């Protein structure tokens, strides 16, 4: 039993089921990120944990206490909303202590909690202002402060960074991570941004169409995606998925692919269990950073395969140069070092790190290796 238990939870509106048997156990101090495209049910699940939406089936328990039907204010949770939801008529200080006041905490205690949190978030100079006089980043801090002051069991974040501009978003992301490392609180965080999910979480639940597609650490999600959906949703640029099939050469399974000029090539797998798929079609998944110029290849990898191919388009992005080229009839992206000498139209020798290759069943789209 975890700290926050989500047991076979479903949600339906009339005959439409929007969440299907979600089962997640969150340990104390974990940072769980629910990530997925809009409409995947992640915010609904968060609202159900908060008690703002009813539970159609299953159970949600916090610290072993079943929360079905318990009022939001009695769950000892705090929530940070996307729009921050600061009370416009109250000062920052009043905003932050409103919850304590409603819970009957005496004034001296409220003031002490307020002072502590304001200092922690460096907003002590803003306490007498109204939310309308604050910048976006300051409002974001106040919204977090309002949650922190309550000292709840579980923090719920509903896309808290999506209203900020790009630079501030990155800063606040680091800030939230620091805060979590310092306070070791249990957090459930909803976002549609896979980078936020990767950087912040201790565990990620990738959701789509009301199903949890995969639940795991960022590393597991990134290197061993459960299916093609997770593989392409997490990571930017997305993982390259090309149709292929397995052939055995010298007892080692190889992926058969065709290059941009139509020549057939074989790439040796590091996963022996693919022998069972000999002669059968598969989907080959390779992350862009696993296809590089030879000098940029991972030295620690035990399986770098050379692949010469005609370069389609080059996109210098400053830190890296992205190359787009055709492989087995699909456009794939490779990530080169910034100063790799590569020109469009040229045939170039790429290095493919097959240790990081993933294979999927083409009919079910589930991962078959590694």
């Amino acid at each position, binding site marked *: 039993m975890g700290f926050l238990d989500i047991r076979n939870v479903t949600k339906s509106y009339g005959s439409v089921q929007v969440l299907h048997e979600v089962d997640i156990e969150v340990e104390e101090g974990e940072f769980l990120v629910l990530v997925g495209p809009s409409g995947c049910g992640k915010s609904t699940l968060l609202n159900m944990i*908060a*008690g*703002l939406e009813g539970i159609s089936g299953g159970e949600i328990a916090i610290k072993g206490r079943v929360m079905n039907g318990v*009022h*939001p*204010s009695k769950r000892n*949770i*705090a*929530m940070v*909303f*996307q*729009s921050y*939801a*600061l*009370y*416009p*008529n109250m000062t920052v200080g009043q905003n932050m202590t*409103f*919850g304590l006041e*409603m*819970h009957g905490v005496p004034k001296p205690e409220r003031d002490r909690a307020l002072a502590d949190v304001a200092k922690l978030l460096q907003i002590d100079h803003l306490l007498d202002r109204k939310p309308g006089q604050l910048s976006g980043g300051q409002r974001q801090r106040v919204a977090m402060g*309002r949650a922190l002051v*309550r000292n709840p069991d579980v923090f719920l974040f509903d896309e808290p960074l999506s209203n900020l501009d790009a630079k501030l978003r990155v800063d606040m992301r680091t800030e939230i991570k620091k805060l979590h490392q310092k306070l070791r609180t249990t957090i459930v965080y909803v976002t549609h941004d896979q980078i936020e999910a990767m950087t912040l979480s201790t565990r990620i639940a990738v959701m789509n169409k009301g199903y949890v597609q995969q639940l795991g650490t960022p590393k597991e999600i990134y290197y061993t995606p459960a299916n093609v959906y997770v593989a392409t949703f997490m990571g930017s640029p997305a993982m390259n998925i090309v149709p292929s099939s397995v052939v055995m050469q010298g007892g080692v399974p190889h992926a058969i692919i065709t290059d941009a000029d139509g020549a057939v090539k074989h790439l040796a797998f590091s996963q022996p269990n693919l022998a069972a798929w000999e002669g059968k079609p598969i989907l080959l998944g390779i992350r862009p950073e696993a296809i590089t110029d030879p000098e940029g290849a991972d030295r620690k990898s035990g399986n770098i395969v050379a692949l010469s191919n005609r370069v389609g388009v080059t996109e210098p992005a400053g830190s890296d140069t992205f190359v787009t080229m055709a492989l087995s009839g699909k456009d794939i992206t490779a990530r080169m070092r910034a100063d790799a000498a590569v020109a469009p139209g040229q045939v170039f020798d790429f290095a493919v790190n097959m240790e990081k290759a993933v294979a999927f069943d083409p009919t079910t789209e589930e991962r078959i290796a590694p």
Partner: protein
Amino acid sequence: MSGVTQDTAVSTGRITRAFIYLVLILFALFYLLPLYVMGVNSVKPLAEITGGNMMALPSVWTLEPWRQAWSTAQIGVEPTGLRPYFLNSILMVVPAVAISTIIGALNGYVLTKWRFRGDTWVFGLMLFSCFIPFQIVLIPMAVVLGKLGLAGSVPGLILVHVVYGIGFTTLYFRNYYASFPTELVRAAMIDGAGFFRIFWRILLPVSGPIAVVSVIWQFSNIWNDFLFGVSFGGTSQPMTVALNNLVQSSTGVKEYNVHFAGAILAAFPTLIVYIVAGRYFVRGLMAGSVKG
């Protein structure tokens, strides 16, 4: 785009501008003319009105007509002046406006933030009450007031006006609260505030503009109402009915100067409300109507 419009504004020039202002001033004067006539004639002796020009300034200034209209003029059979009726109107209008505004605010809060199955129907029906003509409900209302024992009393009039006003006040507050972010209500719920606490602490403090609209609308409607007043007023008739009795009396000499003074007295409270809160009225109407 704005540069272009600014150019045309400059090129229309001073002459066009002066012409526009002239026309506007003329219209304003024209609209103010009745008030001028009433004002001027209410401070003249009666002889000057009957024997002279209505537009002329008085040759003898007197406040006697005002004193008479207020305290000694014959209203019906009693020489009480308008004073007791003015008091009736105040006693009726203040609670009626307050109650209908508060109920409207609560209705708007429930219809937008505590939605329930069929809430749009409920709202539709309340809206429908705005379109029912007064005359239709006179007889059923008389029966209801009679059964409640409120016929011919100030509380009875308050009830009638509250019932009639709820449709409008609900409409105002519902549209205003519809654009109020629901996340704030949810945040307050998590913070532990209940139904009334959220209303009192979160919504009401930002409801100023729409409350002004509601108060102005209800005040002018209830203060100026004649039909309900004359039908259900009984012994506590409002100002409008008394003014009618003063002006329409068919015996004796028509004291026009007293009538003018009485009419101004009757119009005075609404005038004050509009002057004091008029600009909030427009602002609030806009705020409520942009997001519906």
